[in-house]
């Protein structure tokens, strides 16, 4: 269970800050209250995770758990939009937390200076109502997936390579899990990959919108749909995906 937080109602300041999104049909104060009382884990605040965290903070999610190891390098600055040049050489996750706090001083942040691994995934997922997976390594994604399935937490899977990207929203038992979809990682996958910030930013914003939809109950999340795009020619595909009954991770659900 996430760290116990007393349920909070909206206050006058919330009504002022979120006025324009409260107008979204079907969302309203009830949707906003759900966001305010939600905890979201974001696995890495890099190219994808930075805009996810920023948009969720902007939308009024009450608590963010940020897992991101390492110190800021110059090559992070083309896409990791929560970072700043003056922070080079210092822990990335602290810079991300500072930037988010500047936008939303009331936001609760659990800043974890580690990437998700087999060792910490159980504890980190337990802190959250929903997880957004923005990790660059398949090992991190598989560790996160196993815990989301075990703890029955929704998982938004966003990933990219060059100008290509994919996005889906997983719900244990209702949709495929990461292992249903990709039982093994590609042989040729490399840790470092070509990326423009505009690509990771576009996908990150869509992933944040999926999180807002799942938490507030509006719209139709990408359940059993893998949305895939290529910004070379702006082509989008909605691919139908299904659970694997023999999946080693979620097959028993």
């Amino acid at each position: 269970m996430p760290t116990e937080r007393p349920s909070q109602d909206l206050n006058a300041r919330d009504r002022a800050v979120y006025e324009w999104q409260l107008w979204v049909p079907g969302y309203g104060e009830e949707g906003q209250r759900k966001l305010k009382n939600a905890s979201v884990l974001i696995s890495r605040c890099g190219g994808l995770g930075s805009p996810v965290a920023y948009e969720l903070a902007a939308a009024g999610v009450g608590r963010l758990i940020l897992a991101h190891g390492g110190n800021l390098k110059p090559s992070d600055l083309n896409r990791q939009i929560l970072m700043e040049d003056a922070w080079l050489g210092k822990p990335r996750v602290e810079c991300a937390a500072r930037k988010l706090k500047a936008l939303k001083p009331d936001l609760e942040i659990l800043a974890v200076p580690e990437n998700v691994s087999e060792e910490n995934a159980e504890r980190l997922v337990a802190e959250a109502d929903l997880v957004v997976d923005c990790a660059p390594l398949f090992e991190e994604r598989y560790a996160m997936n196993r815990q989301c399935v075990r703890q029955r937490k929704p998982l938004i899977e966003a990933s990219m390579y060059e100008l290509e990207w994919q996005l889906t929203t997983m719900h244990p038992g209702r949709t495929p899990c990461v292992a249903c979809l990709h039982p093994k990682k590609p042989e040729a996958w490399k840790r470092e990959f070509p990326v423009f910030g505009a690509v990771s930013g576009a996908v990150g914003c869509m992933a944040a919108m999926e999180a807002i939809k799942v938490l507030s109950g509006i719209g139709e999340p990408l359940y059993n749909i893998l949305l895939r795009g290529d910004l070379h020619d702006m082509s989008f595909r909605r691919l139908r995906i299904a659970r694997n009954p023999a999946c080693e991770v979620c097959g028993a659900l």
Partner: protein
Amino acid sequence: MAKVVFTKNLREHIACPETSAPGATVREVLDAVFASNDLLRGYVVDERGALRQHMNVFVDGANVRDRVKLSDPVETDSEIYVMQALSGG
């Protein structure tokens, strides 16, 4: 002839331009494509001809059901879309 499309990141590893090939099942169409491209065959399917674990194939937007025999039916105007997982963050 069914259209066969490979994602761009696959095309960077292996020569696999968009193509068309005859066949009534995924197996028949892909075999026709692989006939002149052993490298691609080895990347997409294993020695038994089953889809490799990191690959996904869709027929007209739906994930194939039979990953082992690739027996899912294909129409003459179908599109077979071949992709592998991405993990960039």
